[in-house]
C-alpha cells in the first residue's frame, strides 16, 4: 500500500473572543481557548498511481488532511504512512518524492522570471543537468508556457502563474503530488489545460495525485475515486460515479408531442409528477427513477415528435448533496 492513513484525528486549540471593544479588552487580559476537531477518525488506503479527489465544503478539513499527508502537521491521534515514511518527520528522502501546489500560496519569487526560480529548485532538489533540461522542456511544452519563461512572475496572468507553480513543483519528478485548489480563480481554458495535464502526467509517470477543489468539475474530470469530508468526518470513500448515482440526481426530460394530440390524459398525471407544459412541449426535472416512470406512462399513450434527456450540471447535484449529505448515504 502506498498511502495508509489510519484513525487519523487532528484537533486545534482555538482562541475565542467575543465581538466588539469589550470583547477585545477582555481577551487582552484573559484569553479563552476551545478545542476544535478539524478531522475525526479518518482511515484511507491509496495505491500508487491513483488520482484521489477530496470533496467537502469550506472548513470540512480538506486542507488539514493535505497538510497532514505532506507533513506540515502532526496528527493528534492515529497515523499517516506514505511509502514507508512518517510525513511529519520531514525526512529529506521523503520530501524529494513529494510535491505540493497550493492555489493561494506561491513559491515562485514575484519579481524575477520563473526560469530563475526553477533553477533554484534544481539546486534544492539536486537535479542533474540533463534530467532537469529534459523535464523542464517537457513540462513547458505540455503547459504551453515556453514564451513566458523569462517574464517576471508578477507580469503573468493568474493562469500562467499557476502553470509555472506546477512546473516548479514537478521539476524533481515527485511520485506523490498534492494539489490544493489548483484551479482557484482560473479561466475555463486554463482550468481544462491543467486537468488535461494532470491526467497525462499521471498516466505517463504513474504518479499519485491527491486533489482538493471547489470545482466539482475538476474532480469529475480528473479523479475516479473521491473522498468526501463533512465537518471533519469521512462520509464517503469510493468511485465518483457511484456517489453521483447514490445521490440520484435530477435529470431533465423534454418531450414534444406530435401535432393535434389530445392532452386530456396528461391532466390525470398532474399531481403525481411535477412538470410544465408549454405549447406542445412538456419539460420535467425529476430524479432518474421517477423520470423513467413518467416516460413509460407517456409512451403508453403518445408517440413523441421529439424527445431528449439532459444531465444537470454536476455542481448543482453536489450542492444539494452537501445541504444534507446524510439523506443520500
Amino acid at each position, binding site marked *: 500500500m502506498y498511502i495508509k492513513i489510519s484513525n487519523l484525528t487532528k484537533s*486545534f*486549540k482555538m482562541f475565542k473572543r467575543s465581538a466588539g471593544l469589550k470583547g477585545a479588552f477582555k481577551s487582552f487580559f484573559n484569553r479563552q481557548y476551545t478545542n476544535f476537531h*478539524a478531522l475525526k477518525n479518518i482511515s484511507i488506503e491509496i495505491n500508487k498511481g491513483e488520482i484521489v479527489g477530496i470533496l467537502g465544503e469550506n472548513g470540512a478539513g480538506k*486542507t*488539514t488532511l493535505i*497538510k497532514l499527508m*505532506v*507533513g*506540515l*502537521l*502532526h496528527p493528534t491521534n492515529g497515523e499517516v504512512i506514505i511509502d514507508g515514511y512518517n510525513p*511529519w518527520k*520531514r525526512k*529529506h*528522502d521523503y*520530501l*524529494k518524492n*513529494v510535491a*505540493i501546489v*497550493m492555489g493561494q*500560496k506561491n*513559491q515562485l*519569487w514575484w*519579481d*524575477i*522570471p520563473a526560469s*530563475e*526560480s526553477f*533553477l*533554484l529548485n534544481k*539546486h*534544492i*532538489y*539536486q537535479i542533474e543537468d540533463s534530467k532537469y533540461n529534459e523535464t523542464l522542456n517537457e513540462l513547458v511544452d505540455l503547459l504551453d508556457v515556453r514564451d513566458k519563461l523569462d517574464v*517576471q512572475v508578477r507580469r503573468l496572468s493568474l493562469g500562467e502563474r499557476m502553470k509555472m507553480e506546477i512546473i516548479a513543483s514537478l521539476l524533481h519528478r515527485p511520485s506523490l503530488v498534492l494539489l490544493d485548489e489548483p484551479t482557484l480563480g482560473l479561466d475555463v481554458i486554463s482550468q481544462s489545460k491543467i486537468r488535461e495535464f494532470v491526467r497525462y502526467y499521471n498516466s505517463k509517470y504513474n504518479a499519485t495525485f491527491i486533489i482538493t477543489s471547489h470545482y466539482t468539475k475538476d474532480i469529475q474530470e480528473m479523479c475516479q475515486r473521491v473522498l468526501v469530508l463533512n465537518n471533519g468526518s469521512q462520509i464517503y470513500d469510493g468511485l465518483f460515479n457511484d456517489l453521483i448515482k447514490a445521490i440520484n440526481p435530477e435529470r431533465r426530460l423534454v418531450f414534444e408531442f406530435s401535432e393535434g394530440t389530445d392532452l386530456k390524459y396528461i391532466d390525470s398525471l398532474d399531481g403525481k409528477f411535477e412538470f410544465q407544459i408549454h405549447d406542445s412541449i412538456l419539460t420535467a426535472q425529476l430524479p432518474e427513477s421517477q423520470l423513467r416512470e413518467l416516460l413509460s406512462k407517456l409512451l403508453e399513450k403518445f408517440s413523441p415528435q421529439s424527445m431528449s434527456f439532459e444531465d444537470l450540471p454536476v455542481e448543482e447535484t453536489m450542492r444539494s448533496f452537501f445541504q444534507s449529505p446524510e439523506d443520500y448515504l
Partner: protein
Amino acid sequence: MRLMVHRYLILWLAFFRNSLSRDMEFKMNFIGNLFIDTIFYGSLYFFFSVIFSYVDSLGDFSRDAVIIFLIITYLTDTVFLFFFGSNTFQVNRMVVRGDLDLLLLKPVNALFFISFRYVSTYALISSSILIAILFRATYLYSSSIGIYNYIMFFFSFLMGILILYCVEFMIACLVFWYKNFSVGGWLASELIKYSRRPDSIYSGIFRKALFTIFPMALVSSLPARMLLFKPDIILLLSQLLITVVALSLAIVVWNKGLLKYDSASS
C-alpha cells in the same frame, strides 16, 4: 561533510543569483538603500560628535578610537544585512501568512533556507566602501596596529556578526509563540542599540552582562578592541565560546518554535 558544505555553498550561490536578479529590477531601491545607510551612519556620527563636544574620551576609547569603532559598527551592520538582514526581517511575515509551509517542504535544512534565502546584494557596495574607509582610518590611527591585530579583528568581527544574527533570529522566532510578532524588528533594533556604543560607556554588573549573557559588547566593541588595543587571545576564545552557545540556543529556539508551529497552524 565536504559534500554537505559544497552543496550548501552552491545553494547559497543560487540564492545570491536570484536576489541579484531581483535587485537589478529595482535600481532605484539600490540607490535608495545606499541613501538610507548614509543617513543612518551620519546620524550616529552626529550623535557622537555632540557627545565629544562635552568630553575628550569615553573610557579607554579616545575620539579617534570611537570613530574607528563607528566604522566597524557600520561594517557589521552592512555585512549582517548582506547575509541575514532581509531574512530575519521576513520570518514574521512568513509565519503569519503561512509561506513557511512551502519552505519546510523542501529537502533542505530549513534553518539554512530561512536564514539565507534573501541576499541584500546592494550591501556589497556599502561594505566595500566601508572596508576602504576602515583601512584608511587604521592607517592614520595614532598608535600602531600590527598584523596580529588585523587577524584577530577578522575572526572577532565574523563572530560578532554571528552573535548579531542569533539575537535577531531568536527575537524573530517569538512569532511562533505570539502568533503575530510584527514588533519583533522594533524590539531587536532597541536591543541592538547597546552594540552601537563603545563598551567603555557601560559599567558594573551591566557591563559584565554585555560581555556574557547579553553579548552586545561582542558585536562591534570587542572587534574594535582586537584591532586597536593589545591583542588578547583569552578574550577572543571567550567570544568563540559565547558565539557557539548563542548559535546552539538559536537552533534550540527554532526547533521549539517549529514544534509549536506544526501543532498550531491550520
